[in-house]
């Protein structure tokens, strides 16, 4: 079912749990829909005018439907109490102690994500909006000793695998929404509030890239645009033994011939950045 739904690759510890939730509900939906659907089609054929000239005043006499509705209600209750509520409380209540987690601040703005690492000392330096400038988007106070070793990046979030991550999320201007689909993380970033999100990455970016890599037969004519943004995961050498298409480079029209006469017919490509920090809220 998961593949049928086409859920993206799971890169976090809790991802599979959320997917299971989604899959379970869709089973219920599928059963209901096919059930009612077949009934529907049957009725339309069985009771069409030409086949059933005189309508039956009474219609359905038994009350099976009430039981059916009862059952649906029960299943929904199970999904809710058995799965949804525990999972949600796990997401928002069971936040691991910051001592054994990677802690970062993220401050959204139109249109960038400012990432603030506390640095080795594990303490965030003071920030002050009066200090905000193009160079210092967070208004970090560099005179604060705690700030000395702090690191600030933009639109880039580097995290260790296998260790819980706690993000203190907020926004400078309007409402944004931190969206990491592969990690099944989505959380609104609301100005004036700091909200904690946590998750445990289980796969490195390289591995994600490999799982996403696909074989493509070498295009005959020009490079089609859907291949353009992709990159190779290995060096491709021409027949003279030297690299024509280096690892991490993307396919271009001019290298195609040399690849062809090197007898290369297929090529493995993957997205350059398999996962980005997306924003899921209309923010201008």
């Amino acid at each position, binding site marked *: 079912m998961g593949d049928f739904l086409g859920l993206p690759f799971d890169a976090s510890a809790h991802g599979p749990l959320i997917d299971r939730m989604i899959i379970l*509900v869709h089973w219920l939906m599928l059963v209901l829909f096919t059930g009612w659907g077949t009934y529907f089609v049957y009725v339309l054929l069985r009771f069409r005018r030409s086949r059933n000239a005189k309508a039956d005043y009474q219609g359905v006499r038994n009350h099976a439907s009430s039981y059916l509705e009862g059952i649906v209600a029960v299943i929904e209750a199970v999904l809710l109490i058995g799965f949804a509520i525990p999972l*949600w409380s796990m997401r928002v209540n069971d936040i691991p102690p910051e001592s054994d987690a990677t802690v970062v601040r993220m401050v959204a703005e139109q249109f960038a994500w400012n990432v603030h690492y506390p640095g080795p000392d594990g303490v965030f330096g003071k920030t002050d909006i009066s200090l905000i400038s193009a160079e210092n988007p967070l208004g970090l106070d560099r005179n604060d000793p705690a700030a000395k070793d702090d690191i600030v990046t933009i639109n880039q979030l580097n995290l260790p695998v296998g260790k819980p991550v706690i993000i203190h999320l907020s926004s400078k201007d309007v409402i944004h929404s931190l969206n990491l689909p592969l990690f099944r993380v989505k959380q609104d970033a609301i100005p004036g509030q700091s909200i904690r999100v946590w998750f445990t990455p289980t796969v490195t970016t390289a591995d994600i890239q490999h799982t996403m890599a696909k074989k493509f037969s070498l295009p005959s004519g020009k490079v089609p645009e859907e291949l353009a943004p992709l990159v190779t995961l290995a060096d491709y050498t021409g027949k003279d033994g030297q690299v024509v298409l280096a690892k991490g480079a993307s396919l271009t029209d001019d290298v195609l011939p040399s690849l062809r006469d090197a007898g290369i017919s297929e090529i493995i490509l993957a997205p350059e950045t398999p996962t980005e920090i997306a924003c899921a809220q209309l923010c201008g």
Partner: protein
Amino acid sequence: KTIGIQYAITALLFLLFGFTLMMIMRWQLAYPGQSIPFIGKLFGDANAPDGVMLPEFYNQLGAMHGTIMVFLGVVPLAVGAFGNYVMPLQIGAPDMAFPKLNMMSYWIYFVGGLTMLSSFLIPGGAASSGWTSYAPLSVIATAGQTVWLLGMICLITSSLLGSVNFITTIFQLRAKGLSFMRLPFFVWAQLVTSFLLLLAFPPLEAAGVLQLMDRLAGTSFFMPSGLVVSGQPLANTGGGNPLLWQHLFWFLAHPEVYVLILPAMGIVAEVITNNTRKPLWGYRSMVYATIFLGFMSFVVWAHHMFLTGMGTVISSFFQATTMIISIPSIIILTALFLSLWGGSIRFTTPMLFALAFLPMFGIGGLTGLPLGLAPADIHLHDTYYVIGHFHYVVAPGTLFALFAGLYYWFPKVTGRKMNDTLGRIHFWLSFAFINGVFMPMFIQGLAGVSRRLYDGGAMYSHAQGVMHLNVFMSVCAWCLGLAQIPFIFNFFWSIWKGKKVSDNYWDATTLEWAAASSPPMAHGNFATAPEVYRGAYEYSPPGNVSDFLPQNKPVEAH
């Protein structure tokens, strides 16, 4: 009645306009960054330099599409038009209780609509913060947002006047013998709908006033302290709360979505009973379900806000209410399904649309369930899955029901029927293409593609796998547009040239068919006050010669 017709025409035109906006957007989604053919140049450099749509313009179109479709298209058509024309006839009333109020309500709606449209012409263009107008974005937005707010205040006022009128009419002007349990289901739907409008809209009006203050008087109801917009600290004093807007907005907007669906269900019930030639199955349970649905719709609003930082207790509450509210919908749909059993089904044009409504609403409703379970919503929130969900309920759901109503009551309004062949063409094409537009949205949504992206997600690698669907969806959307031409032609052609038909063309039992067709526009519906002797759906009662027994027919015809 005149007002009902005015409402219908205006609303249809707005629907067409709102759809046109979307057909333009669909170009940008299918071919991001490519110049819009033919009309591209018309939008001016501010919106689309040499025909290439700018993100700002895309956002304007999106926000206005949503607003127009909901507040200027579907609600006025479902409530203003059908409610005003059909409901008084169905309860055997001479007119609405407050004719003057009724006229006011239409003209205020009209002004509100013009206000909305005018916002495209002002510098900075129309509102661009989504139909949800979330603060702070909407507060720092261009002047278009102010116009949007003023327009909304008109529309809200109009709806309030309307609903007061509806409720009074239904309580006070029912014909002799027409007890509540004899009311056609459509009237019940209108009654509950009116209560929703009456009691859910004022909070949005309040919110609108507060946002106007924020924008014009420099207050900070929705603006927290310490905002820095594009490097510049904002002057406002702060101390406000952006989520306050969301609470007030959804306190209206969830009930609003049932305002969109209940009249549709009412129409479907009328058309189905009439074309199965048998009574509505489980009429009472449907009525109670509707009342319950209406009430519950006031306590689920925060299921639109799961990801605003909600804890377990409150989220559990709103998840629970959301699951609960799905039950009455299931009951209503089940009743409609079972009504088909044992019927003698005539596949007339209105019936086709009414039947299509069932599975379409089914899909839309069922896809509401995963959204209602907060953990699943983490992945699906603000993706195209949501867009797919609600379009299935509003477009192939509500819109189809409204089409059914148009074909069904057209003979009553004009004394002529709409052409059947054209009707069938309109149905089958619309049915095929509308699914072509919305079904792929679930695939994109499950893949995690966000909504409201002016490039349809092309910028994100996680979206690459499903981007190719955009072209298909857009083509379907444009074909869906073409599929409306037979309808529009049929509509106007039939008004003047359509085949003349009898007062009770469909052999229906409800009171509106007892009145003369295209009754005099002057107030006063019936020659003599009708009296009611039985329930609304006495089709093929045992031992009756004809297969229907009108509500106002005095004695059993043995």
